[in-house]
């Protein structure tokens, strides 16, 4: 990439801001998902699919992905600016998160020409929805032990087994699938392979699972002698673990290349200040309570550190003592933070803490209660906070494995 043309970037930024200001849907008469993991109704799905498509057509998604595959061919700085504009405008989220944020970058980094041609555009336009088939009922954190089988038969692989917690599984056209091709391999890792598997076909069934919020958003996925073309194999047989680990690096933010666009609406720490002004505790606005004030400041300080950490990571002399520390730590730091932020917001509400979405007594229509429950999606999904601590302890601090 050549140096970014600042004037062009500035113009792009203004256009993006104006476009989102004008085109962001305002009066939506049903509840929109806060994250891509909460798409629970067809109405939500169709709405978000159309919205992502519109944003893409306007040039504000994948702006830095190669033109030949459907991207905008610009520098990454352009997409960053567009993504910021979306977040600032609090637009609905980008639906096809698994495609945009991990399948897409994975394909661009290590996919074949053919794979890139086939998949990238559909990811950006939301015409083809992606899901991720890693976790299994008996193997979650211990992903390397996944047992779903893939057996080569002529030009096909025959898949048997079950995946679970498959976000958007019921809507997906494709799955990034981790399956065992060689149960006799010298290690459990070496027996795994990675597939770009179609989801619509005989022998593939998805069953929605109800989440702790009462809504839907993920499925269990059953493979019963499902036949997929052998060309769905990514890389070579036995490279599944390697590719899955690379995928998780995009997912955890330790590796970049994402199409951009915001896929999670995290509570803006500033919103909690608003709540503190109108929530009453002991007959006074919560914001007047000294203990609450102190905690609010602590949370604002922590929120600010999240942003500063990622900026500091780009300043080499300030990020070299323990390489990868800031990148590998960002998921743990931010997901734990948002969980505590939501929990604290509930604790400021006096008896109203007891209400939930839909009750007129609920503060902010129960967004904090719902947000808190949903926050576990991020502290569990993508590798739990405990697993993140293992990873940081071992890979950043060099502590021995347990």
């Amino acid at each position, binding site marked *: 990439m050549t140096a970014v043309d600042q004037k062009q970037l500035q113009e792009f930024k203004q256009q993006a801001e104006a476009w989102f200001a004008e085109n962001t849907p305002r009066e939506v008469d049903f509840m929109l998902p806060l994250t891509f993991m909460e798409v629970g109704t067809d109405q939500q799905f169709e709405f978000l699919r159309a919205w992502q498509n519109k944003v893409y057509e306007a040039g504000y998604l994948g702006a830095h992905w190669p033109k030949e595959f459907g991207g905008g061919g610009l520098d990454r700085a352009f997409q960053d600016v567009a993504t910021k504009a979306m*977040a*600032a405008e609090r637009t609905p989220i980008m639906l096809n998160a698994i495609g945009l944020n991990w399948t897409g970058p994975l394909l661009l980094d290590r996919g074949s020409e053919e794979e890139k041609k086939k998949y990238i555009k559909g990811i950006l336009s939301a015409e083809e929805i992606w899901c991720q088939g890693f976790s299994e009922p008996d193997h979650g954190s211990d992903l390397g032990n996944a047992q779903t089988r893939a057996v080569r038969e002529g030009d096909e692989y025959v898949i048997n087994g079950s995946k679970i917690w498959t976000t958007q599984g019921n809507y997906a056209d494709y799955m990034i699938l981790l399956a065992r091709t060689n149960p006799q391999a010298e290690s459990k890792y070496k027996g795994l392979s990675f597939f770009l598997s179609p989801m619509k076909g005989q022998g593939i069934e998805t069953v929605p699972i109800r989440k702790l919020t009462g809504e839907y958003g993920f499925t269990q996925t059953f493979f019963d002698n499902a036949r997929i073309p052998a060309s769905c194999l990514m890389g070579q047989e036995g490279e599944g673990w390697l590719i899955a680990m690379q995928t998780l690096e995009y997912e955890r933010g330790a590796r970049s290349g994402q199409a951009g666009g915001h896929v999670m609406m995290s509570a*803006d*720490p*500033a919103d909690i*200040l608003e709540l*503190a002004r109108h929530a009453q505790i002991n007959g006074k606005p919560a*914001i007047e309570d*000294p203990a609450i*004030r*102190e905690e*609010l*400041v*602590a949370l*604002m*300080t*922590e929120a*600010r*550190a999240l*942003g*500063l*950490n990622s*900026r*500091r990571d780009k*300043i080499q*002399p*300030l990020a070299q*003592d*323990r390489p990868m*520390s*800031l990148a590998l*730590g960002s998921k*743990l*730091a931010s997901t734990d933070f948002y969980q505590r932020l939501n929990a604290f917001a509930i604790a400021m509400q006096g008896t109203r803490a007891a209400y939930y979405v839909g009750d007129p007594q609920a503060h902010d229509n129960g967004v904090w209660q719902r947000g808190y429950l949903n926050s576990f999606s991020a502290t569990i999904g993508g590798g739990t906070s*405990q697993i993140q*601590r*293992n990873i*940081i*302890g*071992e890979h*950043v*601090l*060099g*502590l*021995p*494995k*347990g």
Partner: protein
Amino acid sequence: MSALINAGLTPSIGLSEEQAQLIDIAQNFCRDKSPIDQVRKLLDDDTGFDPAVWREIAELGWLGIGVPEEFGGIGLGLGELVPIVEQMGRHLMALPFVSTIVAAQAILHAGTSQQQQKYLPALASGTAASLALCEENADWDLENISCTASQTDQGLVLSGRKFLVTDAHQAELFIVSVRYDDKPALVIVPRAALAEGAMSREKIIDDTRRSYALDLNGVCVDADSLMEQAKAAETLAYIELASSLLLAAEMVGGAYNVIDYTLDYLKTRKQFGKLIGSYQSLKHTMVDAHMGYERARSHLYSAAYLFDQQGEGEVAVRMAKAEANEAFSFAADRAIQFHGGFGFTYDCDAQLYRRRAIWCSALHGDARYHRRKLADLML
């Protein structure tokens, strides 16, 4: 201020060329000059630091970084010093560095031009100075002063007692806060003006440091030793922020090394046939300590970057001091625990860091103090 936060903008962080170079230079210098054997040797030394090292620092020009060129310095902002103090903190150095720097900045702020000409070139080139601000009231509010100064025929006569005057024994001059005309004022007191026995060494928690109580009763200095009184309150506020920034740097440095020190033990000590670092209650706690350190370091360099900016600088510095206090305290506290019985000994370095964390939090405000100030600025 709250507009900035409400807009969800992340405040800036950056690094100048000079700072980037200083990180490397200071890292090597501090590692060479302050290995742990040397730190321990100095624990029983009256001075508490090696004068030869101090002279080298003066020769490197570090004392003049924040002093304008016309007074023999380089004229950069205070934030430029953060990498140096951070490295000093890593290696538990104890020098009159921060006190001399802050004293020079105070004179730059509120000294008369005559005082600036008289003192700044000396401070930029190796004359040590200290600040006498704390009193019996144990208050972090630097305007809560009961020591006094009044003009007499002989000159300016001081009264009262000051505490926690660091490295007073090496300081050639003191910036002393007093009430004058019943308002806060700052006076420059040369060492020679102190009576015999006016200085008494204090027993403090940080064994690497030297601190003194100062008896001001009977001290008489030239009438023109008073700094510009109209600027006194603003200068006291500046001193608090400048000291907080540099203390935060020292603590962030300390946190890094105490984590490193503990990791070494966790990678070599075995129990139940396994390296203790493989146990998650230790491993995960070390991760939490490390993440706290990373947060504090980000805030530190943001504060260094924003220091000179009105309003934003204060928010950033207070956040940095609060985070550094907590990160260093937690890391050092767990360091003692994770060394087991050895952790309880004087020989284990964990205690050196833990004691220092308490010292650094005790000066210019602990985390709660800064959060309360921040609440008033931000909420």
